[in-house]
């Protein structure tokens, strides 16, 4: 009874709450890191060094007037932010934060669940998230959001192909679709997949930038061109949901990248006995550190690079990343056959 | 106890809803969506029997059905766009010319 219901429920509650807190602090982190990159301080007023800024933001967004445009498609307009938020949260169901640990005399695995199609689950749930953006643009009944949602649907579908193809080569290496087993495969193989699959790693990272609508691929938002893109007409809590969904997606992308390419919860050089003393740091900490590195790179890229143009983005996706991913997949397959 | 009959009834009901959609609606996009419903009805049957017979062949066929559906959607929507560009409508009753 406890193993079947109580512990999974507890895990869900903990992960959901941790995610929402992480997302709001990701916003603060982004503002701070970008501020440092631009030689300024960032939020400093609310709390020491602005650490309570997310709370202030949340309060502000909640008490802000929530406007629905008159000519908007009322139902879809309300549903769109929810549709974009939900997939970003339910992906966490299969992300392993650590191996099985014993807690109060019980064996508890540090992931909500481990299904044997875990990786495909992540991809498919992420692919549903695109509806939020498309519908928001459509339902607003406004031109800038419409353009943004047309951009978004083309961009997200195109980059999904490249990302999924890189994932296939990881699956080829690991021989499994389960997230936990992929990490185990990296332990058994004595190397993180980032080093055996550098091409896949880079393509995945670029694809993740595009899939999460982050600079330099933030075409659907494109503040300077489309005045905010798909969420131009949104305000208040509904806007906040979009905002949170974007950051939740960034965190998901970082976690997936960590799991697939940087050995998940494994400490550096997990098979080297000399470094065993690193084991005193709990495994989930390694996971968080590695994810944090990804988050930092996401923000860093945003602070540095200009934005691609829509047609260049599509060209990059179809003419560079997808062929690269396919070539990588073929080579991986050939090498795998030759080695076995 | 849920038997394959239940699944078959479900699938035939879905099939009929799809057929009714194809027959009754004039919007070709909705007609295409009804066809997707029909294909899904078929898939439910395939998967139900696959699960009943403990044999994955049904699922393989369902995969082929999904592939065909994808191909159909791509070409069909291309035709709709090309048609709409010329006639500014998606009413199937007006699609009675082989060329224009």
């Amino acid at each position, binding site marked *: 009874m406890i193993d079947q219901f109580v512990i999974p429920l507890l895990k869900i509650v903990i992960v959901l709450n941790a995610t929402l807190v992480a997302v709001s602090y990701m916003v603060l982190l982004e503002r701070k890191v970008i501020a440092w990159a631009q030689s300024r301080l960032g939020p400093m007023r609310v709390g020491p060094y602005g650490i309570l800024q997310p709370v202030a933001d949340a309060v502000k967004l909640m008490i802000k007037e929530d406007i629905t445009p008159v000519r908007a498609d009322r139902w879809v307009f309300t549903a769109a932010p929810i549709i974009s938020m939900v997939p970003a949260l339910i992906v966490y169901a299969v992300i392993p934060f650590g191996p099985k640990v014993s807690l109060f005399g019980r064996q508890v695995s540090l992931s909500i669940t481990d299904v044997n199609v875990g990786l495909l689950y992540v991809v498919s749930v992420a692919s549903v998230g695109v509806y939020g953006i498309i519908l928001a643009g459509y339902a607003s009944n406004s031109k800038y959001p419409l353009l943004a949602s047309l951009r978004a649907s083309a961009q997200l579908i195109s980059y999904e192909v490249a990302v999924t193809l890189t994932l296939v080569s990881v699956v080829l290496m690991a021989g499994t679709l389960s997230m936990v087993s992929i990490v185990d495969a990296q332990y058994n193989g004595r190397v993180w997949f980032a080093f055996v699959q550098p091409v896949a790693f880079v393509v995945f990272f670029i694809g993740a930038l595009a899939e999460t609508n982050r600079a330099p691929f933030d075409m659907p938002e494109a503040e300077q061109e489309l005045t905010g893109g798909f969420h131009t007409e949104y305000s208040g809590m509904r806007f906040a949901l979009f905002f949170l969904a974007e950051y939740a997606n960034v965190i998901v992308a970082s976690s997936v990248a960590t799991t697939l390419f940087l050995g998940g919860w494994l400490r550096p050089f997990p098979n080297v006995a000399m470094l065993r003393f690193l084991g005193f740091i709990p495994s989930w900490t390694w996971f968080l550190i590695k994810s944090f590195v990804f988050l930092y790179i996401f923000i860093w890229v945003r602070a540095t690079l200009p934005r*691609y143009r829509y047609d260049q983005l599509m060209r990059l996706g179809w003419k560079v990343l997808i062929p690269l991913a396919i070539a990588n997949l073929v080579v991986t397959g050939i090498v795998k056959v030759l080695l076995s | 106890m849920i038997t394959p009959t239940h699944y078959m009834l479900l699938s035939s009901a879905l099939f009929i809803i799809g057929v009714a959609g194809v027959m009754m609606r004039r919007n070709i996009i909705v007609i295409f969506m009804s066809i997707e419903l029909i294909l899904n009805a078929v898939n439910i049957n395939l998967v139900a029997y696959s699960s009943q017979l403990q044999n994955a062949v049904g699922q393989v066929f369902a995969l082929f059905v999904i592939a065909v559906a994808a191909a159909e959607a791509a070409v069909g929507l291309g035709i709709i766009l090309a048609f709409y560009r010329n006639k500014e409508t998606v009413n199937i009753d007006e699609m009675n010319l082989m060329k224009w």
Partner: protein
Amino acid sequence: MFDTNELVLNMGPQHPSTHGVLRVVLRLDGEKVVDSDVVIGYLHRGIEKLSENRNWTQIILLTDRMDYVAAAINNVGYCETVEKLMSLEVPRRARYVRTILCELQRIASHCLWVGTHAMDIGAMTVFLYAFRERELILDLFEEFCGARLTYNSMRIGGLPLDIPPGWDKKVLEFCKIMDSKIDEYEELLTHNRIWLERTRGIGVISGPHAVALGLSGPPLRGSGVPRDVRKDEPYAAYDEMQFDVPIGLAGDTYDRYLVRMEEFRQSLRIIRQGTEGIPEGPIVGKVPRLIKPPAGETYHAIESPKGELGYFIVSDGKSTNPYRFRVRPPSFCNLQGLRTLIKGHLIADVVALIGSLDVVLGEVDR
């Protein structure tokens, strides 16, 4: 994109990237601009007409409000026009200080341009870097005349005040800082692949075409026409300065960008020469107590950061205000080219091209 009907999109007057209250009505085919209509006038304050009812000195502070990111240059242009009308001799020291101020102002204006232009294309860090350095220039101006944006920093016949003691040293110090900062901007942009892809081959305009459209300043020089009022018809102390006029070859956004980046360096070169060679002497020429130019008309142009800034003034010789006051604003004339430039490009290029023309709406509408 394969939309079937054209979409009319109103870009502006409330749009983050139209640099003020410019309104561009775009006719789009998918994301491609089929045609456009540039609508101006949202910031019209009637400066030209107002000027005809003010006396000659009062007009100086109206000129501040035209190109408000390069107010000192507007002041200089106006004062020199009136001096030309009155055949006044300006002391050499005043001319040198004017040159330094103009070039500082050019750097400040280009800082604002590089920041907003990069921001339009999505690189937001350059914006804050450039504003950081612009702040230093504003400090220098504050020390010189007490104001930071609208300076009212010139008088007919010379300067209102002499430069504060030690100011020239601070200017030289600023030059040193600025040298490395320009490299910093270029490091972020010039060889950045995305920047190259976003700017190369975008909004190409040939030299003769640019001349025909009446473009001036960096947009004209970016197309390979070596026209610079500072060289061709020297004013202030430019005839005593050594500097080069950078020109582009391709006439695209990237070349306009490169031209302006090189102008940063040339401006610093001029400031150095000017500051080191400031002559001693009076700061105001022999100006009559009541300024009342003789009857006649004159046109005088200077090189503002945006292009050729010309003043056409008619005096009837009787009243203490101009009979006719007319400005040839570079932003207004450069904006002429926008429609030609953006035709056939994508929406994302529209904002890039507005940025590459560097228009200030205060000057376009006056």
